[in-house]
């Protein structure tokens, strides 16, 4: 009797454990099923490299190049903001902050990482937009620069927190050896600690990028939303995520537009999947290099 009960519990847990796998597979299936039909009507290269996105015209065009470029621009801009700030802050926490400062700053950074994206977007709209508009004398402050800035600030705590973790895994003996041969703290930091933690920091940056490219609400609210090929950081862009969020409500279910939006989501999903896998591989190597398990 007891044995049967034990077996039953084991089975229940085994079945439930597969749920996460099922959900991931479910997402893949849904994206393919709802996204692929677009390619019956628009061929793949025209979809990805087409320069015009006019899904609601009487003769609609489904070229997502402007959207892809919009995502890339905003993400690159965000990386320019969040990498120096995030990694710099992590190095500060690791090298310069004393015990007390770190005990306060580290949790604060982690708490700030939980600020909802819609609040960032709102802040961008009401504070940063008028500021950029005045500074550069633009008709509107809703532009790629605004999106990059906000996304960058948003990703900074994530990058900082992960990079600080990576730095803390570097064994003390590395530093001591460096000091022993006469290097000062800065030399030790730049020539011993950073290279040792390098791949861990790289993982932090990739995960930050992955977060930026998949972020929806902030870019939807502050980038201006024009589906044109971006030519300047001061012009409006429409990243892929913003396009899905803005248009899915109006796209008739099962229509070409609907399938096109799912196809965009598919591309987005595959992109972040690749980012995450790269991050995973790098971080595994990093752990092996420093002799850490799992």
């Amino acid at each position, binding site marked *: 009797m007891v044995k049967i*009960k*034990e077996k039953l519990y084991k089975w229940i*847990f085994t079945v*439930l*454990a*597969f*749920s*996460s*796998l099922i*959900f*991931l597979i*479910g*997402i893949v299936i*849904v*994206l393919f099923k*709802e996204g692929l039909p677009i390619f019956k009507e628009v061929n793949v290269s025209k979809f990805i490299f087409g320069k015009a996105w006019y899904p609601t015209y009487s003769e609609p065009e489904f070229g997502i190049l402007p959207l892809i470029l919009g995502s890339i621009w905003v993400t690159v801009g965000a990386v320019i903001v969040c990498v120096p700030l995030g*990694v*710099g*802050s992590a*190095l*500060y926490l690791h*090298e310069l*902050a004393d015990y007390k400062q770190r005990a306060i*700053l580290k*949790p604060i950074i982690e*708490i*700030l990482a*939980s*600020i*909802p*994206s*819609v*609040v960032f*977007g*709102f*802040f961008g709209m009401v504070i940063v937009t008028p500021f950029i508009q005045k500074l550069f004398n633009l008709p509107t402050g809703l532009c790629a620069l605004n999106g990059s800035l906000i996304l960058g600030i948003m990703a*900074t*705590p994530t990058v*900082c927190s992960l990079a600080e973790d990576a730095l803390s895994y570097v064994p003390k003996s590395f530093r001591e050896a460096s000091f022993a041969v006469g290097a*000062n*703290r*800065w030399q030790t*930091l*730049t020539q011993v600690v950073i290279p040792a933690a390098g791949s861990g920091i790289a993982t932090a940056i990739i995960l930050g990028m992955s977060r930026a*490219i*998949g*972020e*929806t*609400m902030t870019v*939807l*609210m502050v980038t201006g939303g024009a589906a044109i090929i971006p030519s300047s950081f001061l012009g409006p862009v429409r990243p892929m*995520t913003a396009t899905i*969020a803005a248009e*899915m*409500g109006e796209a008739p*279910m099962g229509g070409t537009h609907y399938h096109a939006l799912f196809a965009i989501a598919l591309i*987005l*999903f595959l992109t*972040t999947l690749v980012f*995450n896998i790269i991050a995973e591989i790098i971080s595994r190597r990093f752990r092996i290099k420093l002799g850490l398990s799992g």
Partner: protein
Amino acid sequence: MKKNITQNIGFLMLFLCMIVTIIFLGSIIYFISIRGFKVISWEFLTQGPRMGMTQGGVLPVIIGTFYLTLGAIFFALPLGLACAIYLCEYSPKSFVVNLIRISINNLAGVPSVVFGLFGLAVFVNFFKFGVSILSGSLTLGMLALPLIISASQEALTAVPQSIREASLSLGATKWETIKNIVLPTALPGILTGVILSIGRVAGETAPILFTAAAFYTRGYPKSIFSEVMALPYHIYALMTEGTHPDQQKAIAYGCSLILLFMVLLISGIAITLRQRQRGVHV
């Protein structure tokens, strides 16, 4: 001497990075608090919207967020905990287990708008739940699942092996050991993970855009199949829809402050607790 100058400049740069980060993030909290505080009143917290979203309060909106979050956790907690228990206590080290681990990691990295589309295709359209609390909760629950699994896993792994062995040696079965010994010991860590994911779920907008949220509903939600207003979506809608941008902006400030306060409070509690637990265990 030269190398010390480089060092000083370098350290100054790092200090500046930290300061700039704090100033940026601090200014968000500052501006929203200062301007949001003016809007918040007893009436704002206890009444529904009136006059086409230009006056009144946001109580139904707060309650909507509460329902959605509760629903998401109700769905994700048992599933996530079971998954973590399997991985930590039962799993034979095999290919399949690795597959589950990888899929959890990747599920955590899926953009939230993609969850939204999945929810739309599966819960809203395929299962015909419609745009409803149920669809929104399930979608948000999927988002919370990887968070709960990894937090529970961490908590279960932190339980010393010797306690398990002691229980087994007294004749307890595996399930009895898990139920009476392992879970109670790991409970604080699991709770921390749950609180943290509550904070995350409460602030998410993209997953509920097409699965649950409405800009305006009359009164309070009646069942799990009704549309709801939710704080994060409300902020977005107030800023992009409607006909009175200035009055709506004021309300959006109020909503942002409430959301920010809620989320920071929740994750503040969770992270402080986690800090303490890690201090005890490690």
